[in-house]
């Protein structure tokens, strides 16, 4: 049976390419909890098919079923008319279907090339052919715009580069179906552009691409068709040119969206609550001075790899660092130390929620209260009832979509993990919050919620520092922006000057501050 099938909605095209992959009534349940029900989908060669939906809608689950990572509880798959059942991801890959996970799944101790070729190493006789693998790896890395070397250990690379390595791995062989689950969540503009180019390229070569993203402008720019999921149900499939971002958002959320960014507060004139003077991290690799004032959002911009994360981790005492002076809330500290910083009222929300943010095997309660353990429990004893109460109120306040409160953090959808992480950090009731990539993996509806949340915080007299690689977010949110390049701040932008162009220009240009970090 190789005949084309009509789409589920009337406004879909009547005839098109034949389906390379067809899902028929796929459902997934974990124990008594159904997370996805009755999804029927056609995936066609030479087409970019976007899947959109709120956090926890079931997008990743669906993709895992299509690529053999999880078996469906109900329903079946067909490839070119033949019913197939994949026992595991390897079989699916052999059949030409590959999934790039939303979360990083790489062996940290292996090099880039070793990860790329894991399980299918090239060899000459008994010997693995490292030279050939490194060469091929370098080619694919260049194709995806990753600057890493094939021989770098993956564990030593920044997250963004790891994400590119994952994508590179998927592109190593010729595929029929490439599934990208939020590939751009960790990438900044340049890399995103490069990736979009790659996706178009794949499509032109007749590959079917399934694309998940919460950045609707990407979907609009890229997709041929769009499928919307909501609460584990399939709402329908549309031709992309019949849709705009607004429509997509409405279909996802099921209601009209309010304004994305809250109005700006204007430059603050209060005394700084956080003042950092000559902070030097990793023995001078990353250096910076800055201040944050109550009532303002300070944005930190820069290209991926500029070193913003490292600088802040140093400030928190999570990396070797030294400063001339750091003043938080009137307390002065020279040798950063994470406990001192936190008790002074400074908290940091990591960009690496899986590796450094959440205990994936623990429940919601232990994760939520870990950082604020002392605040939640004044005595030695754990107040478990209070913990359950705060879990419940958090789930409500941050709109964490869970179907059971006894779920483990690792079983939450990516976006919901991010919300839990945000809640965890906020529970400590900080006066200065530093958030690294606040909306990574968050759907459009919740994004504005988080922006408003930050706005409330700042209006309540707290200070917020936001590191973001998403330019619209940085520009839309910040009252002041510091741009970092090569481990140093190069420009401060305020008011009208905060524009995407200015940030990009400062981040990329090699102005007078040319001392590259690693050159010398």
């Amino acid at each position, binding site marked *: 049976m190789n005949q084309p099938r009509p789409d589920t909605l009337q406004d879909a095209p009547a005839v098109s390419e034949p389906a390379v992959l067809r899902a028929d009534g796929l459902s997934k349940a974990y124990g008594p909890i159904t997370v996805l029900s009755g999804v029927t989908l056609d995936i066609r060669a030479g087409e970019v098919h976007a899947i959109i939906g709120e956090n926890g809608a079931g997008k990743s689950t669906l993709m895992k079923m299509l690529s053999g990572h999880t078996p469906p509880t109900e329903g079946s798959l067909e490839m070119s008319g033949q019913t197939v059942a994949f026992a595991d991801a390897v079989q699916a890959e052999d059949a030409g279907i590959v999934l790039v996970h939303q979360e990083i799944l790489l062996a940290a101790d292996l090099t880039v090339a070793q990860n790329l070729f894991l399980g299918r190493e090239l060899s000459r006789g008994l010997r693995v052919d490292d030279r050939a693998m490194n060469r091929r790896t370098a080619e694919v890395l260049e194709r995806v715009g990753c600057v890493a070397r094939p021989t770098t250990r993956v564990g030593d690379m920044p997250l963004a580069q790891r994400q590119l390595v994952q994508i590179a791995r998927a592109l190593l062989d010729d595929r029929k179906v490439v599934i990208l689950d939020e590939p751009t969540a960790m990438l900044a503009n340049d890399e995103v552009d490069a990736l979009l180019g790659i996706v178009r390229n794949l499509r032109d070569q007749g590959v079917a691409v399934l694309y998940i993203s919460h950045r609707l402008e990407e979907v609009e720019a890229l997709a041929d068709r769009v499928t919307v999921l909501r609460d584990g149900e399939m709402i329908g499939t549309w031709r992309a040119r019949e849709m705009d971002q607004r429509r997509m958002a409405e279909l996802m959320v099921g209601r009209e969206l309010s304004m994305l960014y809250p109005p700006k507060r204007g430059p603050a004139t209060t005394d700084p609550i956080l003042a950092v003077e000559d902070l030097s991290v990793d023995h001078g690799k990353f250096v910076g001075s800055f201040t944050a004032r109550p009532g303002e959002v300070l944005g930190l911009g820069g290209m991926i790899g500029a070193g913003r994360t490292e600088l802040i981790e140093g400030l928190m005492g999570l990396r070797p660092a030294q400063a001339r002076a750091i003043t938080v809330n009137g307390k002065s500290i020279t040798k950063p130390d*994470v406990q001192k910083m936190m008790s002074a009222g400074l908290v940091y929300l990591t960009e690496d929620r899986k590796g450094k943010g*959440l*205990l994936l*095997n623990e429940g919601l309660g232990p994760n939520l*209260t870990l950082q604020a353990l002392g605040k939640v429990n004044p005595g030695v004893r754990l107040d478990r009832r209070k913990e359950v109460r705060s879990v419940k109120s958090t*789930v*409500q306040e941050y709109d964490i979509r869970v179907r059971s409160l006894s779920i483990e953090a690792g079983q939450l959808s990516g976006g919901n993990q991010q919300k839990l992480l945000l809640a965890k950090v906020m529970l400590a009731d900080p006066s200065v919050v530093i958030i690294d990539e606040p909306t990574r993996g968050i759907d459009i509806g919740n994004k504005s919620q988080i922006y408003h949340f930050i706005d409330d915080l700042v209006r309540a007299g707290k200070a917020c520092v936001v590191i973001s690689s998403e330019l619209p977010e940085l520009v839309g949110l910040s009252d002041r922006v510091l741009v970092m390049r090569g481990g140093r701040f190069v420009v401060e932008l305020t008011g009208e000057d905060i524009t995407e162009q200015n940030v990009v220009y400062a981040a990329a240009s090699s102005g007078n501050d040319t001392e590259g970090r690693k050159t010398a």
Partner: protein
Amino acid sequence: MSSAEIASLPESEGFRIRWADMAPFIALALIVLLGALINSNFMAANNLMNVITRSAFIAIIGVGATFVIATGGLDLSIGSMMAFVVGIMIMAMNSLAPQIGVWAIPVGALVALVVGSLCGLMNGLIITVGRIEPFIVTLGTMGIFRAFITYMTDGGSLSIDRSLRSAYRPLYFGDFLGVPYPVIITVVVALIGAFVLYRTKYGRRVTAVGSNSDVARFSGVHVGRVRTMAFVIQGFCVAVAAICYVPRLGAATPTTGQLWELQVITAVVIGGTLLRGGKAHIWGTVAGALILEVIANVMVLSDMVSEYLVAAVQGAIIIIAMLAHRFTSAR
């Protein structure tokens, strides 16, 4: 999601998890059943009481080991540390006995607790400050403690003063309402251990550190301090075991506590605590200690195996018990 929906979210899916936690107790029950079938003497109150009392040492030390292992550590020095603490305690008691009589016993016990905790502190500090694998550090201190006790006993034995013996004896051989003191002490230690592990902030941090130390660090947990403290708890538990141990034989020898570390770690792992850290079952450890002691007892009571092969059958039973509860609890 509305608040009504949240309120109605199922909360105790915990039931399935608790079922898996039962595994060591089921294994224990099976082995007890086996024992009863093999030898009618096994179920004699006397025999059971002996076995339970004997398992106190491994269980008490195991409670400490559960903390260490839950943080992702490992302590190979416990057997030797126990011998060392016993030695110090006996020396302290003997030297005090002439002046303060039986009061030497509580003072000696106090000395033991302090020395045990300090030994643990030393292990913990070398590991966390020096950032060396616990395996290596505690293997080293294992040799050190063992050498010290050999030195203290001149290779022979170091006995407690006769004058203290009869006053101290009941702590092992006596009972309260029919329950032997070592059993009571074990239960108290396990209760306190369970309280600390499951109901206090510190316990929460122990599992957090064991399950992902980076996350713990980023959440402001003093990872090193939590780890070190676990070793101190371990040392303290060793000292408690030592206090129960001395009245039994009244002496320290260079073989005291030999290979107990392997038994203790086995008890902890059989009890359901993961060796890689992050998950801890105090009561499972106690069950694990009982399992080991019952297996050894059943081996002696049964007449079926050559004395040479006892170790083989013991090893096999442990593996089979683990396999059995893996395959029953997996489905």
